[in-house]
Structures are given as structure tokens and as C-alpha cells.
């Protein structure tokens, strides 16, 4: 009997091919959308973390409150001791200091006369201390457009667009004009070693990068830093434990009388990132829910359309002596397997496409040219374990659900009526 029914399914496209296609399409789109939203989301989080927020960030309280002004006069000044404490308290995190500072880059001619100048944001990061991993974290090698990474502290990298604006090329000299943390004037010459493009509109505008130690030196910030960024050792942002760490760290300074006491802020709590994440997650859940609903409706309809053709089959089977229950259950089992096949293929396709999009991605940098938030300019999908059931289960259920409803509709009729319908 089972063989017989399987033969029937395979030979009748309305029973097999069409519903399988519907499920496959529905499931693969669901899976892909989920993976895509996830990918963009986590790329967004990890880009933000790497370029700006860290998984956690420590500043002094007043610095944090005025962070938009980059107030280095309010910087952390006991960096080495703080880092040591952090290393022992939170062994699963790595801490790297970064100094952000404003100023003007000036391009002189041979006589020292200004040719061009423009305001920029400086970034002091560890360029030479491999253990800090900053080159890799900011993927400076990959982002390099022209020239090379600095070899000595007196070298500087500019963002590609900033260098174009200033019309400087690798090897040219630029002078930084700015102020120390105490407010005295600084001017310091650097040799431009190369340019980078982070693929990030905010950073790509007018950033320049020098070595962290050099920044400390020229800004008079011995043993100090503006920001101290923490990264989980596995490089994956963990919302729950970062909040826990944030809480315990801040608790230890709760009663501190030091007005420059440090404060730790998790990625979620920086720049309203948390609500952005939550919003996107909510939207994607709603989207998936609606999609599953629509797929169920389509499948249900496919079942009903097949219904009239199946009246004939059911009628004959009943006349031959199959019981209603047997016919009904065979319909359910049949749709279970159809659902299984469609969902498997759909999941496979969806995950494959996600994988492709994880490795490649869509470049949207043109659309983001003037964007003010840090957002990845290449949208990527991400293959996560939940992709394997997020489309699979609804695909399976909606098929079984659809045919159980249409099957019930047929079975509520009197058996004899199944035949009368056929008489036409």
C-alpha cells in the first residue's frame, strides 16, 4: 500500500512537484532572509566593535559624558595599572588602548609653506606591538590602498579620501597641528606611509592613524589613554556576559570619590546600539512570522486545489474499502514527507545561498556615502545553527497543517457525496 501511494505521489505532479516547489521556495527565502538579517546584524555589531566601541569600553566618567568632544584632558592616566587589574579580573577579555584626537593636517611645500590643510580625526593605535592585535582587528593590511603600513613611529597613514583631499602621496610629509591634553600647542611632522579605506563612511572621511605610543608622546599623555577597549578573546560579542562584566566593574567604583574614576560601557549601551539591535531582531522575527503564515496559506490552497482531483482518488479508495481514517492519515503522512523533502531542499538552498553571501556579500558602499553611522558597506549573510530549523520546521508544519485542513474539509462530507461530486 505504501509503495503504491508513493508511486502515486511521484507520478502526480500536483501531489509532489508543485507542493515541493512551493515549500522549497518558501523555506529557502525564509532561511536566506533570516541568515541575511543575522549576517548584516552581526557584521554591524562586529564592525562597530572593532572600529569604535569594543565589546566593552572604559573611559573616565567625565570623558564618557563628553565623549563627542574627544576630551583628552579627561583621559585615563593610570593605564598600566588599570590594564593589569583588568587582565587579572577578566581573563577572557583582551584590553587595548586607543587615543582619539582632533587636529589639522597641513601639507607643506619645500619651503615649509602650506599648500593644503584640513581638519581630521587622529587615531592612536598600537601599530608595532603585535600582541595587541590592532592591525588585524582593524584589518589595516587588507584596507591598504596605496603605500605601506608605518615602519617607524614618525610615519602616518591617512584614509584614502583624506589623502585625496590633501593631495598627498606616500612618501610626502604632513604636519599635525593640535593640542596636548594640557592644552599646549603641538606640531609634529610625519611621513605618510600609505592610505587605507575601511569601507566605512565615518572613518573613511578624514581619519589619520599614528602609533599609540607616539600619540601618547606628542599629546603628553604618558601612561594615559582616552579609551580602553575590551574584546572577548574569541572575538565574538556576547551580549549577556558583557552586561554582567559591565555591571561588576562599575559596581567596584560605585563609591569611589575619584571624579576621574573609570566607567565601563558595553557595546549594547553605547550610542543606542542596543535598541538598534533589538529593533532589527524584532523586525526580522515579524518578517519571518508573516512569511511562514503566507507560506501556510499558499500550501493550504495548493492542498485545496489538489482536493477536487483527490475527491476522485479518495472516493475510489473509500469504495474499495479503505477506511476514512486510513485515507486521512495517509494524506497526512504523505504531506509530512512532501513537507520534509521540500523543507530539506529549501533549507539546503537557503543555507547554501547564505553561505555564498557569507563569503561574498553585496557592496552597498555607494549608497552609504554620506551615512553618519558606522555600518558595514558590504552586506553579508551569516550561517548560524538556527538557520537549519528556522525555515525547516514551519515548512514542514505548514504543509501538514494545510493538508490536514483540506483533508478535514473533504472528510466532513458524507462519503456518498464524494461520489456525487464526481457525477457532474
Amino acid at each position, binding site marked *: *500500500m505504501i509503495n*503504491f501511494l508513493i*508511486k*502515486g505521489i511521484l*507520478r*502526480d505532479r500536483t501531489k509532489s512537484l508543485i507542493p515541493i516547489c512551493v515549500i522549497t521556495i518558501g523555506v529557502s527565502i525564509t532561511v536566506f532572509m533570516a541568515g541575511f538579517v543575522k549576517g548584516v546584524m552581526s557584521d554591524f555589531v562586529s564592525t562597530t566593535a572593532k572600529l569604535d566601541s569594543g565589546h566593552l569600553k572604559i573611559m573616565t566618567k567625565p570623558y564618557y559624558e563628553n565623549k563627542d568632544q574627544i576630551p583628552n584632558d579627561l583621559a585615563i592616566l593610570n593605564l598600566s595599572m588599570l590594564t593589569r587589574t583588568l587582565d587579572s579580573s577578566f581573563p577572557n577579555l583582551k584590553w587595548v588602548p586607543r587615543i582619539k584626537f582632533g587636529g589639522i593636517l597641513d601639507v607643506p611645500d619645500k619651503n615649509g609653506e602650506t599648500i593644503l590643510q584640513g581638519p581630521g580625526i587622529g587615531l592612536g593605535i598600537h601599530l608595532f606591538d603585535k600582541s595587541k592585535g590592532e592591525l588585524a582587528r582593524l584589518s589595516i593590511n587588507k584596507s591598504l590602498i596605496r603605500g605601506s603600513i608605518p615602519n617607524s613611529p614618525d610615519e602616518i597613514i591617512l584614509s584614502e579620501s583624506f589623502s585625496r583631499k590633501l593631495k598627498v602621496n606616500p612618501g610626502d610629509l604632513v604636519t599635525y597641528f593640535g593640542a596636548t591634553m594640557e592644552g599646549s600647542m603641538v606640531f609634529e611632522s610625519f611621513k605618510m606611509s600609505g592610505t587605507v579605506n575601511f569601507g566605512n563612511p565615518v572613518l573613511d572621511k578624514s581619519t589619520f592613524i599614528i602609533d599609540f605610543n607616539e600619540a601618547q608622546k606628542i599629546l603628553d599623555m604618558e601612561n594615559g589613554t582616552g579609551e580602553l577597549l575590551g574584546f572577548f578573546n574569541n572575538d565574538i560579542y556576547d551580549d549577556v556576559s558583557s552586561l554582567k562584566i559591565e555591571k561588576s566593574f562599575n559596581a567596584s567604583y560605585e563609591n569611589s570619590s575619584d571624579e576621574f574614576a573609570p566607567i565601563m560601557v558595553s557595546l549594547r549601551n553605547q550610542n543606542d546600539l542596543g535598541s538598534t539591535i533589538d529593533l532589527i531582531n524584532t523586525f526580522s522575527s515579524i518578517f519571518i512570522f508573516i512569511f511562514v503564515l503566507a507560506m501556510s496559506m499558499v500550501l493550504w490552497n495548493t492542498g485545496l486545489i489538489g482536493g477536487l482531483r483527490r475527491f*476522485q*482518488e479518495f*472516493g*475510489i*479508495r*473509500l*469504495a*474499495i*474499502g*479503505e*477506511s*476514512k*481514517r*486510513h485515507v486521512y492519515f495517509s494524506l497526512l503522512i504523505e504531506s509530512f514527507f512532501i513537507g520534509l523533502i521540500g523543507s530539506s531542499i529549501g533549507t539546503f538552498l537557503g543555507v547554501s545561498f547564505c553561505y555564498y553571501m557569507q563569503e561574498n556579500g553585496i557592496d552597498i558602499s555607494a549608497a552609504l556615502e554620506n551615512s553618519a553611522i558606522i555600518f558595514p558597506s558590504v552586506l553579508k549573510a551569516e550561517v548560524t545553527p538556527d538557520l537549519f530549523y528556522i525555515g525547516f520546521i514551519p515548512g514542514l508544519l505548514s504543509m501538514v497543517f494545510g493538508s490536514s485542513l483540506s483533508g478535514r474539509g473533504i472528510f466532513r462530507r*458524507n*462519503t*456518498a457525496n464524494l*461520489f*456525487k461530486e*464526481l*457525477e*457532474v
Partner: protein
Amino acid sequence: MSNTPIIELKNLSKSYPVAGKSFYALKDVSISFKKAEFTGVVGPSGSGKTTLLNIIGSLDSPSSGTALVLNNNISELTHSQAAKLRNHHIGFIFQVFNLLPVYTVYENVEFALLLQNFSAEKRKKMVLEALEWVGLQDHKDKKPDKLSGGESQRVAIARAMVKSPKILLADEPTANLDAENAHSILKTMKTLNKELDTTFIFSTHDEKVMKYLSRTIVLKDGKIDKERANKSRT
């Protein structure tokens, strides 16, 4: 033995609610059928023929009265008991749509045997034999859409008869056939009726069928109008 009725209908009525009132498709029908009868239920369209056959075949149940089929009271059977009764003892042939389009002739006939526990070997023997009865051995691997109307009805006969049922119910089996095919099908059924002692009950309003019948029951507006025995044929 052959004189005890295998189907007994007593004061059988079937009504449907139509526009708030009961409409009687069958009204107070009392009649019985004996083993190996070859009987026609004759009457114009709407006279209740299909309803009568469906009740005898346990596809439908009466509104009042009793229908005893092979000692089973149709009104009292559960769905699965009714299914079992059909499976073992009753064959059906309908006017149209008898065959499942995706299956071959062979498979359509075999289908009737799958619910019973015959071995594959036994099934094969039975199916081939049934196809031989109706002269379609050579068409066993064809799909129904490659068959003529007459051939399709022959396959339907083979499927209904393959399990050698006690009762065969045929609802206007020749209605869609030309004279030649109708006659040939009737002859086949008559032969099987004699060889297997199956009780045949037809519904028909086809004049061509009449002369084959050994007994004719005329239905009119759900009631038995008259009944006659045809002695003429051998």
C-alpha cells in the same frame, strides 16, 4: 441456500434537508436481493437509483428503515466496519471517473487487493486473471488516458471483480458508452455473474441494458413503481 436474501431493505427512506423541508430521495423502499441475481434498478434521472446503490454499498446510510447487507445492518456499522464490508464483499463500478489516472491498468486493479493481506505473488495471479476476464491482458501497462471508454469500464469491472466480491454494484456503467461497447460489457458482466455467483445490481436508464436483466426494479420519485422478472433469457 440461494433462496435466502443477501440484501434486505425494509421501509428504507433517505431524506435530505432542502430549503428547510425534508426531501425524500428514497421513500419506504422494501425489497430484497438473492445470491447471484442480475438485477437492474431502472428509472429516470433523480429517481433515487444512486442513493439506493450507495446505501447498499454502505457508502451512505438510510434516514429510516433498515438495510441488511450480508447480515450487516448498514445504519449500525462504524466507518471502519463499513470500510471492511466494502473491502471484502462489495465491488463498485461508477459511471465515470473509475480509474486513478496516474496508475497503470494493472495497478488500478491491484489497488483493490492491497488492503487485504495477499502475497505479491497471489496478487499478481489474481490481477492477471481479472484482466483476462475482461480481455485486457495486453493493456496492463497502459495508463487510463490511453484507454477508450469501453476499455476503461472493463478495467473498472476487473478491479471490482478481482477480489471476487459477493455483491457488485454498478451505477449506470454503460451511460457513457456506445451500443457496441455497452453490449460487450454487459456480456462480460453476465458471464462473470454466472461463473462467480456474484450478485449484480445495476442502476440504469439505458434501454440496451434491459434485455440482459433477469430482474428489473423500476424506481420513480424514490419509490418502487413496479417490478418484473425477465424470464426470457438463458
